């Protein structure tokens, strides 16, 4: 069962409260998304740690129900 874009956004924001989240539905099929997550809390973290923070907010769904999420992250 794929996830809706606003559900993905809500989970990321719940896990990283200061995050700005932009979700793009890449294929229009509710299954292939791109997310850009910007959060001051990422400052000083390398990309792997930033991505892991987002995956953690998604509570294990990444790689499961969410198999196609392109992710970019930045501190500002």
């Amino acid at each position, binding site marked *: 069962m794929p996830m809706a874009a606003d559900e993905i956004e809500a989970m990321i924001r719940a896990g990283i409260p200061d995050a700005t989240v932009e979700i793009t539905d890449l294929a229009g099929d509710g299954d292939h998304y791109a997310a850009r997550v910007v959060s001051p809390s990422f400052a000083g973290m390398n*990309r792997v740690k930033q991505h892991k923070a987002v*995956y953690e907010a998604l509570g294990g769904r990444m790689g499961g129900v969410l*198999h*196609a999420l392109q992710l*970019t992250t930045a501190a500002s």
Partner: protein
Amino acid sequence: MTEDTNARIDQIVKKDDVVLFMKGSPLFPQCGFSSRAVAILDHLNVTYESVDVLQDQGVRQGIKSYSDWPTIPQLYVKGEFVGGSDIMMEMYESGELAELFKASAPST
């Protein structure tokens, strides 16, 4: 993950300078993200070892806990986890990936 799988993955990761865990082979990638990872490495003219996780369920699951990273592909350089295809793409665009390979190239 069994100790065994972990040890096996550790061995694979450390055996070659550049290792890509992917779905399918570089010639026939079985997933868009793996295909993108291959394209980036090929474009940078990097010699790398690829591991098709679809051929080995132990490695397919084990690699995710090995790096604490939920998705495939996964790139390792000199035994260090670098990232998945999104991070590879960002590092490719910024030139960091080329720098990384230059820095880790065996001196001749």
